[in-house]
């Protein structure tokens, strides 16, 4: 979440293997660029014994053929091990999470033996130190799931399920973003991964699995009357739409609109009235016909339930 170079600041074993590889390649890049730059400067300037030495066919054979062949072979062998490491499946104790790319947010489903244990959106909690298996899917267009501090990216392709294995070895909030251009508000499709100790994670999961409580709130009536339930699910109520994100525990999320804005009551009110201002082109209509007070009531209701 800071201004660092996320891909080189790993927080887990997969990302660490990739960061090591990246550093080796960066060193290779500067070393070879330096060699070629030096050779070019020597050859382009007049005179000198070095220039006479370079101006021969051997440099083409040794510099152009042999040198790249050796470098490429070395890198390839090393990279095979890295590929193995970042794609290998863990033995056991895996947290299984299905993430569906949607235009332009993330549907997150925690899986257990029976199927979907509970659903949330745009914020993924994982326990520190345990392997997580992400089942990546899409029902509209192609998206790509990437959390740089945790590992490589993987596409979400309609008609397929791709598996990505990640693990966080330290606590923290790690930003991710859709990296396959998915039209419209592709730029505004981010997510956050919250890595926390097992106990905290268990508590969070237990809370998420609970249905929402009270419907004896004016906000609920407005929510229901405005047809919000056609698209959104609030578990424990009649609202069971599947088009937009599950809002059951919206207040527990750090951000709104797929990590575009911090989740504050004020931002939530703005989003309800003019969602398209925060994320142009999304499918949620404006609710200008609702008064400020009505919007505040809905926001208040959504903000109450944990």
């Amino acid at each position, binding site marked *: 979440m800071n*201004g660092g*170079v*996320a*891909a080189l600041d790993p927080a887990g074993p997969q990302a660490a*293997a990739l960061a090591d*590889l990246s550093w080796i*390649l960066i060193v*290779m*890049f500067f070393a*070879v*660029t330096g060699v*070629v*730059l030096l050779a*070019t400067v020597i*050859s*382009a300037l*007049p005179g000198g014994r070095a220039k*006479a*030495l*370079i*101006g021969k*066919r051997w*440099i*083409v*054979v040794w*510099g*152009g*053929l042999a*040198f*790249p062949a050796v*470098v*490429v072979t070395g*890198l*390839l062998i090393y*990279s095979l091990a*890295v*590929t193995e490491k*970042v794609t290998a499946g863990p033995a056991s104790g895996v947290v299984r999470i299905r993430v569906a790319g949607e235009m332009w947010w993330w549907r997150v489903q925690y899986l257990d033996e029976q199927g979907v244990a509970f659903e949330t959106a745009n914020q993924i909690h994982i326990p520190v130190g345990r392997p997580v298996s992400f089942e990546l899917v899409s029902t*509209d*267009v*192609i998206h*790509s799931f990437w959390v*740089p501090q945790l590992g*490589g*990216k993987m596409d979400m392709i309609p*008609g*397929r399920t*791709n598996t990505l294995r990640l693990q966080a070895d330290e606590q923290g909030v790690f*930003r991710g*973003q859709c*990296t396959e*251009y*998915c*039209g*419209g*508000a*592709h*730029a505004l499709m981010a997510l956050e991964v919250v890595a926390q100790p097992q106990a905290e994670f268990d508590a969070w999961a237990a809370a998420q699995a609970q249905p929402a409580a009270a419907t004896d709130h004016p906000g609920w009536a407005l929510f229901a009357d405005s047809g919000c339930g056609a698209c959104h699910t609030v578990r424990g109520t009649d609202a069971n739409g599947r088009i937009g994100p599950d809002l059951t525990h919206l207040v527990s999320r750090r951000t709104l609109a797929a990590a575009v804005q911090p989740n504050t009551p004020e931002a939530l009110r703005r989003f309800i009235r003019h969602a398209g201002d925060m994320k*142009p*082109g999304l499918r949620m209509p404006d609710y200008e016909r609702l008064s400020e007070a009505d919007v505040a009531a809905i926001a208040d209701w959504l903000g109450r339930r944990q």
Partner: protein
Amino acid sequence: VKSETGFDHDLYHRFPTSEERPPAELEELKRIWCAPRGIEFLKAVNNNYVGLYYIGAAFLFFVLAGVLALLMRTQLALPLNGFLDQETYNQIFTMHGTVMMFLFAVPAVEALGILLLPQMLAARDLPFPRLSAYAFWAYFLGGSAFFCSIFVGLAPSGGWFMYPPLTSAAHSPGINADFWLLGIGFIEISAIAGAVEIVVGVMKTRAPGMGLDKLPIFAWAMLVFAALIVLGFPAIILATLLLELERALGWPFFDPLRGGDPLLWQHLFWFFGHPDVYIIFLPAAGMLSMIIPAVAQTPLVGHRLVVASMLVTGFISLWVWVHHMFTTGLPPLALNFFSLASMLVAIPAGVQVFAWIATLAAGKVRWSTPALFAVGSIITFTMGGLTGVMVGIAPFDFVVHDTYFVVAHFHYVLIGGMVLPLFAGFYYWTPMLSSRALSERLGCWVFGLIFSGVHITFFPMHITGLMGMPRRVYTYPGDLGWDVLNLTSTIGAFLIGAGVLIFIVDVFRKFRFAAEGNAGNVFGGGTLEWLPSGLYSNRSIPVVQSRYPLWEQKKIAEDVEEGRYFLPGSATGERETIVTSPVLAEPQYLQRMPGPGWPQFAAAVFTAGFFLGLTVQFYWPAVISGILAIASVVWWVWELDLPVKQKAADVGAGITVPAYASGPRSHGWWGMIVLIVVMAMIFLMLVFSYVYIWSQRPHLFPTDGDLAPMWLGVALNGVAVVLGVSARKLHDASPMSAAVLAVGSAAAIAAAFGVDAATAWNAGVRPQTDAYAALIFAFLSWQGVFVAVVMMMALYALARLAAGLLVRERPMTIESIALFLSYAAAQGAVGLLVARGFPALV
């Protein structure tokens, strides 16, 4: 030297001749190759004009797409900037990529081929001048219409590789995506036409004695370029056809809900897309391999290694497409194979880079603007090549794929490997075309601004990418540390813009087209394009004995100018050039060439009208335009293979060659073969699509069908092949029987098609049902087009017969038709065996 064609090499010793040439000879040459005046510029077919139009149009699109880039960089200068809205930005980045790749890069190098090859090979023109003109006008008209879509908000917004399902009718309902398919359709046509031209030109119209070992590197590069177009473009042609069929008619090739697969598009697109990078890079590398020896005043070090490395690059480039798909969830075996293949490209690239460096070191560099751009290219391209090795490593690609790191990588490669060499080429070859060279003083500024601008723009993007910034985002948050880097990139982009602006000013100040009386060989190049020349190319066509004739063959320029070599005037009173053998370039015959005319221009206008009408859904104008386009092509073709005034011609020093040829000696045969290879590649891509979908969704493919109709169709097509081959064989005895056999062959092809179509329809196969049915109809449609073409060809043969133009001495018309018939029938048979037989027989 052993002769390739039986031509006696001792005859070369007759040159240079010593007798005076008749004074009227040069005047006649000038008259025959005269410049177009006024409106006649539309009719021009000479490579000097078409090449210049082409490069001008390509440069125009470069500037336009560059302006789009500046708009994008302005938007990204600050986080959460409101300069452009989301939809506009998405259209602009799509257009920037599409226009740069399709309307600038490929046409620009093709333009240079058309402009420079005849001069380098000392041919009077390329072998199919009207085809070049058609390719240009189709490209220019179609490309302009496509570009204008941005002004009315109808530009595509799916990204330049247009991945479905985003670009399917469901997610891109407007005609914006169709504009993309239209724009690309034109460039497909013109690229293929250019490739035919260039393959045949390089193989068949070289100066006598210019064996492959003496072929200039640029010509080698253009040969590989053309081969890659022939092998690579068919994939995008098929992909665009399938996507348009899915969008317009609902045939589900890519829709996973009906058995299609979005990844099929990616395979087809990148099977074209990656070779496309080398289609762009190799000619530019070829230019560097011409310019660097000139600025260092010494032959290229490692000439053969460089040629070999270009051939190897071309080959490897066909085996790396999957590295664009590393993050689609491929098995490790595929990752490792394509990783290896991708990294191997470093070796031939390294050979070229070190050959350039060694050449600079072997000579003494005379600093000039071309030299600056050449050295700038080496550095920039090397850096892009190294990040290319990095992204070729699958696990590193998992990190940087679709981030700004990749944006940095391919801009380094394309700018270092194509744009900077192109500017080197502009400065280097302008004196060949213009009465004045470009300004060296301003040239330093142009280079300084562009070179520094490129690095200031794109180097920071490596870091922005590693920080997590994805490509194709219209904005980004301010709290991630991406803002300073983005602002730096924006500043760099405007420096590039300033450099290009100064260049344009200089071109307007200095460039004055002058085929004769040009500024001359100011950089001291050693190859034939620096011979004194006019619109007719060189006064006489020299015998080439070395790779750098101007450095190593004494007095060659003077002797050429005085007409002391081959073809010092016009032997037949028409436009003509010497056609030579492919390996040793021995004179074979004299090709008579068409002069200016309207047919190819009319064909281009109506082709454009046809596609444009379809795109904006004006169907009746489209149909009329399509019919007129076909009529124009018939008009054009009718003027081919006309009566020969003289059977043989004296091409100088008493050496006589035929003035007509058929079979593998002739340029027409070669052109038809290249065209057939293109058709076969498109068909092969369709077969690939079929097998690919079968491998993903085998349950859709019936295995219990009745194969009798298939065998009937195969047999009918077999008969068609026999009839087609016999038509050519019988022509020498009786042109009338040949025409009748051609009609019979076409009828058999049509009958086989009819059987298959009826079988599919009666079995209830409907193309919208699922991917299998759609593929069956794709096979039918493709073969249906061939049925229409062979029917027209059969009618054409009859018309020629009726007009008395089908005569024994001139078999080219029937020969071309017979080749096409045989191919169409073979394709029909294989199509049946694959579409109908494969699932049942495997």
